[in-house]
Structures are given as C-alpha cells and as structure tokens.
C-alpha cells in the first residue's frame, strides 16, 4: 500500500475496503409450494408464490422466492397424479393408483404445466440469441454485468437439498397477473416447517447516510468504504466443497463427509448454487438425496432416504452427482 493506513484483522483481512463486498439488498420469507401433494395441475395450480417488486433488481419482471418439500413427483399418463413422499423412519405411507409413465424430480424439473396455464407470450429480452447467456437469468437486472447478485437462505438444522435461481421469461405460469421474472427456490429437508427466510445480496453499494461516521477513498477519490451504509454486509465466513465422487458415495452408500470451516458458524445461511443430487435404484421405493447441514465449524454432506409407495414400478435407475460448492454466511 503506497499511502494511508490499513486495518487488518486476525485473519489478515483488510477491513476498510468494501469493493466486492456483498451487501444485503432485500429480505423476506419464501412462499411454500405444495403442488406436488395436491398435484391437480388441471384444477388447482397455485397462484403463489407471490411476486416481489424489489427496487433496483426487477428489470425485467419480478422476483419470486419459494421453497418446496416434495422432492419427488410422479406424473401419471394423464399428468394429474403425484405420490407423496415420506422421510425414512416415519410411519406415513402413501398409496396412489397412478400407473403413469413419467417421473419428475423436483430440483431438476423446474416446472411442468398443461396448456391451461401457458397461454401468454414470452418476454423479449434484449438481443441475446442464447437464453442461457442471459445475465438476467440470475437477477433480472442489467446491472448484473456490473454487480454480483446472490440469494441466501437460512439453513435449517435438519439441512437442505438444494437451492437455485432461474429466469422465467413467460407471462405465465403462475397467473395472468404475474409477469415474467426471476425465481429463487430452496429445498429444505422434508418436514422442516413452513418458514424459510431469504436475503437477496448484491455487491451494489447500499444507500448512505451522510450525517455521521467516516468514509475511505481510493486514490481517485472514489468511496471504497463508508460507515454510513444503510445495509450491513453479508457475513460470508466459510466455504465447503464436495466433489461429485463424494456425492455419489454419499447418496449410493450412505457415507458422510465433513468439512472443517474457517470459522464456527452460529446461524448458518447458504448461498450460491447447490444442485439437487440423488440416487434411486430401479425397482425400489427409496430415493436417496444429498443433504447439507452446518453445525458450528463443520459442514456435513450426508444422505437422507425418502421412501414412497409404488416408486418401484419405475424401472430406471436414476441419479445425479455434481460437485457441491457451498457458500456459508453467519447470522445475516
């Protein structure tokens, strides 16, 4: 450093530079989607989740934040049935007359609908020719090329199977009054309650108060830190990586893997992208799902086995193993 001063903590982290720091932008509670239990697409497709108009992050469209706890769905030939699913160890069972042909795993399938719910038009999005390259698919804002956006969810002690964001360019599916927008979803372990908090974070600097505090400037006079930011930084304190090979061993054989975190976490929140990984052997009723938990200074990858009736008549062994890269914040 050629000038000024530096404050460094015991991790060697320089403090008074906020460039690249994630700040809280918005927060709320996810909407619970229970469609896989009612599973009557033709008659009761939910009008939720609610849309959220978030200033500065809604162009184009709206955000929605939702979670679900039915990580498996089986559609019948008429696309109207599904099977409920139960955590191993519970006495609940579910029997369906469904003898259909399609199997869908939520967390991989985002949305399936019939023609009653898709009658709108897709929204024109800039001039991109490949939808996958849309920056808007993350945050719904053209600012995404300048600022990083991420969505964090409060992690239940029982763990979670995945989280993700995606862009929905259609006028539907949820209702004609809900336009296109960005969705963030979260998959907690089944039975972890109906209250799941989210925080939308961005490297875009919050608004400042100006009556007190102090600021730090770079050599060009740009503010690089202000004590007057009206939102606090997202306290990302740890990461954990699990390889696809470890995920496979976990969900197939039940092996657990631990990672020691950089810092003990009191109230874990997780962000980034966590793909839904699972294993289902043909002709069984078991669905084994990778689960992430955080306790203290340990992040654990373990297996949760769900069982359901009539799953065994689906003859394919199906699985998905991917690297897991967990971003962990504390007490957002």
């Amino acid at each position, binding site marked *: 450093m050629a000038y000024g001063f530096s404050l460094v*903590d*015991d991790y*060697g*982290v*320089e403090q008074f*530079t906020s460039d*690249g*720091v*994630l700040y809280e932008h918005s927060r709320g509670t996810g909407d619970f989607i229970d469609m896989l239990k009612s599973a009557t697409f033709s008659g009761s497709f939910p009008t939720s989740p609610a849309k959220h108009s978030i200033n500065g992050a809604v162009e184009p469209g709206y955000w929605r934040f939702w979670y679900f706890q039915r990580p498996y769905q089986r559609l019948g030939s008429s696309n109207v049935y599904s099977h409920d699913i139960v955590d191993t160890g519970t006495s609940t069972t579910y029997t369906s007359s469904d003898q259909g042909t*399609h*199997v*869908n*795993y939520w*967390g*991989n*399938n*985002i*949305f*399936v*609908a*019939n*023609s009653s*719910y*898709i*009658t*709108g038009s*897709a*929204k024109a999005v800039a001039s991109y*020719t*490949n*939808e*996958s*390259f*849309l920056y808007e*698919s*993350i945050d719904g804002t053209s600012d995404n090329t300048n600022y*990083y956006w991420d969505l964090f969810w409060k992690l239940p002690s029982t763990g979670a199977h995945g989280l*993700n*964001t*995606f*862009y*929905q*360019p*259609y006028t539907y599916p949820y209702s004609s009054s809900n336009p296109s927008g960005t969705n963030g979803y979260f998959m907690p372990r089944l039975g972890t309650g109906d209250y799941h908090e989210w925080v939308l974070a961005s490297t875009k600097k919050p608004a400042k*108060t100006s*009556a*007190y505090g102090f600021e730090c400037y770079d050599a060009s006079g740009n503010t690089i830190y202000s*004590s*007057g*930011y009206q939102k*606090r930084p997202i*306290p*990302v*304190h740890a*990461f954990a*990586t699990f390889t696809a090979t470890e995920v496979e061993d976990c969900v197939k054989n039940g092996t657990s893997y631990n990672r020691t975190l950089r810092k003990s976490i009191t109230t874990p929140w997780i962000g980034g*992208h966590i*793909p839904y990984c699972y294993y289902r052997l043909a002709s069984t009723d078991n669905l084994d799902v990778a689960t992430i938990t955080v306790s203290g200074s340990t992040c654990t990858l373990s297996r949760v086995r769900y069982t359901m009736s009539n799953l065994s008549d689906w003859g394919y062994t*199906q699985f998905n193993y991917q690297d897991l*890269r967990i971003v962990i914040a504390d007490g957002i």
Partner: protein
Amino acid sequence: MAYGYNVLDHSGNLLEPSFGTIRIIAREFFLCTDNTTRTVSNFDSDKGYYVIKPHYTLKERTGSTSYAFNRNFSSAFTVSTTYPQMIGNTNWLGAPNVSWNNSTKVLTVSPGSITINGSTDTPTTHGTYGGCDWADYEVSFWEFK
C-alpha cells in the same frame, strides 16, 4: 471484545464485524459449450474460493417426442399450447467442469456431461430424450483480502 474494532451506526448497531467478510475480486462469464481457459492473476485459492453460478432460464418444450426446447428468447413469441411443458420429463440441471490451478492462476472449464438412462447428455447434444438443461454460467472469485 478481545481484539480488533467495531464500527457502529448512530443506533449502535454493528455495521461490520471485525473478523471481516469476503470480497468478490473477479468474475468470468462462459458459454455452456466453452472448452477454454482463463487467467485470473489476482486470485489466490489459499485465501478464498470460487463459485459457479449457472444462468438458468425456463424454456418451452416444442415437440411431443423430440424433447427439443425453444432456447431463443431474442424476440417475443407465443408459447405453444400444443406442447406447453417447460423443462419437463426427467430433465436435469447440468453443471460444467471447472478446475483451478493456483500455481499458474489458470481456470480451466469444459462442458459438463450427465448420463441419463444410459444416454450421455452434453450441451451440444441437448434435446435428446431425457435431456439435461444446460446453462451458460459465471465463475466468481471470492477472497478474504
């Protein structure tokens, strides 16, 4: 507090804890079909981490058996009501292969692949039966600097 400092706002709320938070120091964008390398000279994986974020977008199924999905949202179009599914039928969300060499500061990426019902799906074969959903993506580099 045994060490460090606290910065408080006018209400006495803690603004930034003394143990610090992490900074995103670089971002790189890739197509899902990219097979390439990028040099990120200022990133040290001993001090941080990199995060992969796919840019998924819903797409429309355009045929009853082809499992082809309309991938072009460059202009408005009317969603088919004949084949209205969007990302359906055993689709997966695929991830790329990404690795980092901290000595050379080079990030290497290549298209991912997933085997579904005995058939290997990649971004270039997208649209076959049981096809995976691939997305372009960004890699962000986070560092405790």
